[in-house]
Each structure stands twice: as structure tokens, then as C-alpha cells.
């Protein structure tokens, strides 16, 4: 399952950018910083994916309204 489109295209672009930057000089700061950006965006994409997975409408409603009838839990 892929992340929302905006973030996904960001990851794609950043990878292309990193490959370009490193083609010129693999040891340069630009190359390293570009791959670091890829890592940061990949992490953001993965979090976005996780957020998407967890949207059960009842869960989200009950997080904000735990005292309503549908959301009460009885522990004993």
C-alpha cells in the first residue's frame, strides 16, 4: 500500500535528485544531504501510510468522545 500521492511523488523526486547530485560528485555534501532528504521523506511516507491504515471511524470518534454510549468500556 503506497502513501498519499503528494508524499509519494516527493519521495520519487528526491530519489531522482539524489541520483543526479551524486552522479557529479559522490563524496560531496550535496550528495550526502540529498540522500538524507530521501531518508527523511521515506520515513514521512511510511508514517503517512501507517496513519491511513489506522483510520477506523469508530476509533477516531471515540478518541475524542470516550463518554458517549457507543464508546464506553467496562473493565471489570
Amino acid at each position, binding site marked *: 500500500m503506497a502513501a498519499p500521492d503528494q508524499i509519494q511523488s516527493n519521495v*520519487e*523526486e528526491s530519489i531522482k535528485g539524489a541520483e543526479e547530485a551524486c552522479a557529479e560528485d559522490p563524496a560531496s*555534501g550535496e550528495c550526502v544531504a540529498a540522500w538524507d*532528504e530521501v531518508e527523511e521523506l521515506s520515513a514521512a511516507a511510511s*508514517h503517512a501510510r501507517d496513519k491511513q491504515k489506522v483510520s477506523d471511524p469508530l476509533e477516531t470518534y471515540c*478518541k475524542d468522545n470516550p463518554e458517549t454510549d457507543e464508546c464506553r468500556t467496562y473493565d471489570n
Partner: protein
Amino acid sequence: MAICTPLNSSTYSSIIPQQNHHDAAVSFARRACWRATSSHRPRRGFTVITCASSDAGTVVIGLAADSGCGKSTFMRRLTSVFGGAAEPPKGGNPDSNTLISDTTTVICLDDYHSLDRTGRKEKGVTALDPKANDFDLMYDQVKALKSGVAVEKPIYNHVTGLLDPAEVIKPPKILVIEGLHPMFDERVRKLLDFSIYLDISNEVKFAWKIQRDMAERGHSLESIKASIEARKPDFDAYIDPQKQYADAVIEVLPTTLIPDDNEGKVLRVRLIMKEGVKFFNPVYLFDEGSTISWIPCGRKLTCSYPGIKFTYGPDTYFGQEVSVLEMDGQFDRLDELIYVESHLSNLSTKFYGEVTQQMLKHADFPGSNNGTGLFQTIVGLKIRDLFEQLVASKAKSPVEAKA
């Protein structure tokens, strides 16, 4: 007239006699409230007085881990041990990295980036580089929170890569600072009551990143590898050395139980616990200080392949005395977990089976069937124990000063 000094346990008994002569009891209650005086040199602006939510001041925990903040599994397990779920601040910036529960506030150290994503690209600097982080601000604000003063902390927006306007953070009972550099700056290190380093070996890191990124369009094995390799020099230079300062290190390695396993699914996890840390008693197996090798699977317990193997023993780590508890393998069933728990000692549980209960509560979290989940849960209980002991010791010393 109020004195603005950082509150830590060693200065307690010396502060109390210096307060108002009138009433020692009153000054005990007041001592947690500070006014930020002009000598404090506020950086981005401090909000005025707030008292620490517990009279003992704020306990500060540092957690060092590579790229990932706040939402991580470790943080959720930790905050769950203290009770309550940690949520982003309500009504604030939706991209805030901060998590708040009843007792705990988790701050992501990425918020102290001095360069945003564009700035770093221009300078050719990674987020791992100290040049990209404002350690002065980090120190000022952690010190302030520890002494009971609220702060306005910047927000680093991971979605846009920009630094967003600040949010107000009130001093909690337990403050967790999580990120790449919690132990990098010596002044910040001294503020930490307990510190943890999550040490993932290169093979496991590679396997996890493949699992994470292969679903992304644009990524390939080569790009994942290139990203790891490019970041490695900065990581080894700035992040990795922090592990020598940690009170507990959770080291994640590939398993030894399956020859040539490179999927990273079965893990060998080592909990390296420093000896002699105040209020922290390392977990042990059977006999403290001895060396044990234990395979619980046998006549009383049947496990499925590849099984479980534990070792425990004293060791040295960067020249310091440590105790190491290691688990290799996976839990398959509830009874394996409770069996293992019943044989470990010094777990700081409040009742028999608490570790198992915590693990079951979050059975869907990654690592719930191996040492990562187990040791993260145990570290959470140890921190709770440390917090309670600290509170108890601080409650005692003003009484002694009075007499």
C-alpha cells in the same frame, strides 16, 4: 524575589534553607515555582510562571534513535506503562511532533533543527550533523522544563520540511526527549535522569528499510542501499558515539538461531544495562552477577522453530561495568511469554504478569513477539520505578532540611 536555578536532586537540600525564612512548609510548596528572571536570557520567549506538576520536579529521559520521532513503537510502549495513551497536542499544529499523556510529554529533538530541509540542502549538511541543530536552545528549554517553567518550542514540520511557529510546552511529570542527539551535548546530557540508546545493526537496519521502502514508487534496492551508505559517515561520527553515555542500550542484531537468515524477521536483542546508575537496578536471570545461558523450551514448555535462547551475564562496555541480558528468537504463544517473565528478576513490575500484560496490550506493535518489544517494555517499567524512587527521595529530603 525568587532564585532561578535548575532543580535537581543534588541541590534540593541546599535550596530549601535559602528560601524565605518565614515558613519552611510554605517555601517547600513554593520552591517548585520559578520566575524566569532577565538573567535567564530567553531565546524564543518564555511564558511566565508555571509550577512543576509534581513537587519533585520533572524527570527527564533521553532516547537516542535514528530517524523517527514520537510516533515510534518504543514511545508508545513507554507512555503506555505510565498509563494513558500519548496524543499530539489538541487544537495545535496538526504536524506537531510532540506527544502528551497524563504524566508524560514526549518532545522530538528534530524541533531543534537550526536549518530546515532547504537550508540543509544548500549547505550540503545532513540532519545528523550537529551544525544543523541548535543545542543552545535545546539545553535552555530542557533546563527550563526540568525546573518547572513552560517553554515555547519551535516545531519542525516533517511534511513540509520547514520550521513552523512555536508551540507551548508545559512542564510534565516525565519529559522524554527523543531523537538523534539527546546525549550529544554535554550540558543536555547532565540534565538527563536516564538515557537509552537504540542500537540497530547494519544488517537489521537494511532489512527494516527494505520492508519499509519497497512499497514506495521510485525506491529500489540500490536507492535504499545508497541512502544508508551516504548517511553512514555522519551517523558513525555524530550519533553512534552517544551509546557510551547511555544508561541502557538496546542492541538489535540478526539471529544466530537460523543460519544465513537475512530477512531480519527473527532477531537477537541485547539489553545492555549500566551498573551503578542511581535508582536503576538491572534485570537479571536466576543469579545476579553470574553468567547464564538458558533455553526455556524443553519439557515444561514447547516452542516452535526457531525457539528462544536467553543469556545473561556481566560485561564491560566502553570501559564501564554493565550487565547484559540477551534474547534470541521469537515468542509464539502467550504461555511462552509468561514462562519467561516468571524466571526474570528485578523487573520492577507491580504485579506478576505485568510485562506479559503490557506486551499483549500492544500485540499489534512491531517487535511484540521478540526481544525488542520485551526489552522496550522492561525499560519502560524500569523508568517508572526510577521515577517513583526519585519522587520518594525528593519527598524525604525537605523534611530532613526542616529538622
